């Protein structure tokens, strides 16, 4: 049995209905990976922004289905974060993101996400942050769209040992 605790809740928030950003700050550096679970209602883009970096240092590739067509695309040198999801309706959306090896100071950081909105989107994305800093804060950022007051966000720590 591994000695370290895994799948540990670090912080959880419920949106106020008038905010576009939920920020997890002072993230402990004691885990291997991070996982964000969000159940939210809004219509807009979902960005993950690390350590407050708003520069063009993010890239994403996605595959998605809208209910009528399937497609894949890529965006490079993205500013304000990696766009990892999209709320398209008034339905509850499930958004999950895994951020790997976040505490190391040697490699660029990668993330995988799933976005599920029965109103019209099933999407999987991979993102890259071109920065070797350890991640100490994550903003789940939605430009121009408030998260409803039923939206919840939890950050978990995953330990490998």
């Amino acid at each position, binding site marked *: 049995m591994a000695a370290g*605790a*895994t*799948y*540990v*809740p*670090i912080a*959880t928030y419920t949106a106020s209905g008038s905010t576009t950003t939920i920020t997890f700050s002072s993230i402990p550096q*004691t885990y291997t990976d991070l996982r964000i*679970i*969000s*159940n939210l209602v809004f219509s807009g883009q979902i960005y993950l922004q690390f350590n407050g970096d708003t520069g063009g240092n993010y890239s994403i590739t996605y*595959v*998605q*289905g*809208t*209910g*009528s*067509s*399937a*497609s*894949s695309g890529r965006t490079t040198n993205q500013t304000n974060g990696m766009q990892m999801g999209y709320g398209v309706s008034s*339905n*509850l*959306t*499930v958004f*999950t993101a895994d951020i790997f090896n976040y505490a190391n100071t040697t490699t660029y950081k990668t993330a995988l996400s*799933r*976005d*599920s*909105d*029965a*109103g*019209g*989107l*099933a*999407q*999987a994305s991979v993102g890259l942050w071109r920065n070797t800093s350890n991640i100490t804060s994550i903003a789940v950022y939605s430009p121009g769209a408030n998260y409803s007051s*039923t939206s*919840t966000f*939890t950050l978990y720590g995953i330990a490998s040992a």
Partner: protein
Amino acid sequence: MANPTMTLIASNTVGSGGASSVTFSSIPSTFTDLLVKISTRAAGSGTATNQQLNFNGDFGGNYTSVFAEGTGSSAVSYKNTGYSFHFIGNIPAAGATSSTFGNCEIYIPNYTSSNQKSISSDSVTENNGSAANQDLSAGLWTGTSAITSLTLTCGSGNYVQYSSFYLYGIKNS
């Protein structure tokens, strides 16, 4: 440090007689989210069949699913509105390579809330390189009651022996 909160609630492995469906009932309300991990194969004809999810014994037209599916050669997307189940993907059937099982993971956040329930599921099936399906699904159940049971149903024939189902609870505090 907070306590780890991913807890196995129940599991089920299908015996030699097969099973057309598997139900987890009396799900405790003490968690925040539910996670289901399954490895399954169907006895029905063809190389693949679908797999269905229902909550609280509701088999009415109260489910909507959007999914993106890749087959190895093309990708498609469909939306099922007002269906009697949530489509969670395909699994290998009798015509697929023997001993090959499909894998699926289902995430259900805030399952005790009084809101409608959202679902995210990922599913893969493989036929030894000659065919495959990968499905990303988004689901909505219009029920506003807390989820106390969930049923997984094989689309064609029974689940075969050794099909396995694991239900986990996840707490956010």
